[in-house]
């Protein structure tokens, strides 16, 4: 069992927990993920590591309440225990040789983008962060981004905070103004990442996208997390759990990934409603 040491509500649907998991805390690097199960009958869900404290032996993860499992998880408090917490899994974000990076995060994806931005900052790279949210109420981690970014641009879809519009607007402006990023790293909804790739393409800037497909074991056994890359015109199957989660944005078949992500949409909606009702009754 793994104790939740601290819990912090970041916005009405996004929560941060720090979990006692010393072995994971020693090893986890930005870009890697863990798999957790809330209880004995629970689903295995992957969550990206949002930070570690190796001395204390804790691992920080941030999750958005999107379904039954995250709803149940959100009802756990500091002092409660999680059934399972395994990791770190996946390949850490590639940082070598990158001196000028643009980190583009969207929504809850910013939780994953933040430790990546921090890592580049720590390594001495110039960090530009563009983070986007639907509205002001959903904004998370602004102070953390500020602390590790040479420049931070906050976007909201409705203009209720920061600049009005989506994250590709300032990205395009900077690229058009001649900004020479070594790498754009994008983490967020698939549709946003697809458009970030499209925005960067005319300028030939490399884009890394962090994928978050449906997973079960997360250790390279089930193949559920497969995504398709298009390499030299050929379709190549890769597994996000061991080959990723970061991939070359230009190669990813985003439309396929979006479709696969909705495989259990109907089931999930039903399960989520049931889980919500459970807590209403209680």
């Amino acid at each position, binding site marked *: 069992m793994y104790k939740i040491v601290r819990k912090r509500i970041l916005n009405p649907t996004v929560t941060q927990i720090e979990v006692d998991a010393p072995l994971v805390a020693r*090893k986890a690097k930005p870009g890697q993920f863990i798999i957790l199960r809330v209880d004995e009958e629970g689903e*295995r869900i992957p969550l990206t590591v949002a930070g570690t404290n190796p001395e204390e032996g804790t691992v920080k993860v941030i999750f958005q309440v999107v379904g039954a499992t995250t709803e149940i998880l959100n009802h756990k408090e500091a002092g409660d225990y999680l059934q399972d917490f395994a990791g770190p899994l996946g390949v850490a974000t590639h940082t070598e040789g990158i001196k000028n990076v643009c980190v583009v995060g969207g929504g809850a994806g910013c939780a994953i983008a933040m430790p990546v931005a921090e890592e580049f900052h720590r390594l001495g790279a110039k960090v530009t962060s563009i983070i986007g949210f639907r509205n002001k109420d959903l904004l998370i981690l602004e102070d953390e981004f500020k602390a590790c970014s040479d420049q931070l641009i906050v976007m909201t879809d409705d203009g209720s905070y920061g600049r009005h519009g989506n994250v590709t607007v300032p990205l395009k402006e900077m690229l058009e103004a001649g900004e020479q990023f070594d790498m754009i790293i994008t983490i967020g909804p698939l549709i946003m990442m697809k458009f970030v790739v499209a925005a960067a393409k005319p300028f030939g800037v490399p884009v890394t996208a962090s994928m978050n497909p449906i997973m079960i074991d997360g*250790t390279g*056994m*089930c193949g559920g997390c497969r995504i398709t890359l298009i390499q030299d015109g050929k379709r190549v*199957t890769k597994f996000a759990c061991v080959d990723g989660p970061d991939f070359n944005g230009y190669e990813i078949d985003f439309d396929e990934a979006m479709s696969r992500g909705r495989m259990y949409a*109907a089931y999930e909606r039903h399960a989520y409603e049931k889980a919500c009702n459970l807590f209403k009754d209680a």
Partner: protein
Amino acid sequence: MAVNPKKHEMPTQAPQVRAHNFQEVALGYPVEIAVEEAKRCLNCKNKPCVNGCPVNINIPDFITQIKQSNFEEAYRIINQSSSLPAVCGRVCPQETQCESQCTLHVRAKMDPVGIGRLERFVADWHNAHANEKAQAPAPNGHKVAVVGAGPSGLTCAGDLAKKGYKVTIYEALHTAGGVLVYGIPEFRLPKSIVAKEVDTLKELGVDVETNVIIGKTLTIDELFEMGFEAVFVGSGAGLPNFMGIPGEAYKGVYSANEFLTRSNLMKAYKDAPQTPIMKGGKVAVVGGGNVAMDAARTALRLGAEKVYIVYRRSMEELPARREEVEHAEEEGIDFRLLCNPIEILGYHNPDDPRDPKNGFVTGIRCVKMELGEPDASGRRRPVAVPGSEFDLDVDTVVMSIGTSPNPLIKSTTKGLEVNKWGGIIVNEDGLTSREHVYAGGDAVTGAATVISAMGAGKVAAKAIDEALSGK
């Protein structure tokens, strides 16, 4: 007294009943039948059956004890060679191992003694009647780490623990058992039996650390730094293979590993599970191995109205155990032999990109095959018959065409040599290219049987003991 030429049948659930539940198919011998079956054994001096057993169980001796109704003594004899008798009695391919060597079968052309069924009987009798715990032997002061709590790892750990080694098993998943819990379905191997075998190991003093992924959470080098003197790697099969045909990314296409893991390990077969799985409709399972049979029969029990096995060769080449194939046929699985998928078909509404049905499987396009000249494996190579394409309407496709080794340990362990398929290279003792690092099971051989993995665990345990006991 004349020997009954026929093996005693084991009672099973009726096909039309069992096709709709996850309870065990085969129900095991009652005591009287077990004793009668045991009496068929000639107790030959040269014991050919023992050589047919990958872990060399002293078969005539345990059967002799059954004849005399000394079931606990029979268990003790099996347990000297096998740490998982209740498992092996159920899932071993005895017909190609011990039973294929049985004198009754080889010399007298009768049915062989039902060794597997008797092994299962003894193990189940023990589990139902024995209540004393296994005794941990006096520690010998040596520490060994085992990577993976599957059949090879559990066997290696059990053998070493019985000799007084302090063994820690590191398991990546949340439950010990490996393929016995994620792969083999409940109706063939109840999970309570696996849990019981794992508990027995714990009583012997074995520590089982779940949620530790060797290669990620800890490396093999760190295990040595932690004071382990030898490491056995039984990390199992790896990433599932796909065919590389169009449509494999449609929703409703699973690897057998994923489909079975959802149902078995994650208990998606239960009512209102937290882990979803596609249930019902029509299902095509591609492949002809035991895993394909397990997937097809699982799909049926999940409520499928029709389940196909699509296999590109004929029944003669189909690699699954006969018993499993017969069970599957009795349950109504439709075998489409000499058929090869060329495309998976999906739904696409040209007028509505938001149609929730978009991207879901609607069928599988196959081509008929005929057998040509023998290939490198000696089996006749299937060749597509031009113009023979046809479609099967299905909602779910399960690809069961093998796996490739998992890269996690290889990529983080310097000096560990692998072959061109990614399997870890070992010598006859299970020793790898790294000193004091042993390996066995699917991580070495690629997908094989539970018992061959156990055999490898056993060989490595013996070699580890020889290497460390002299220290």
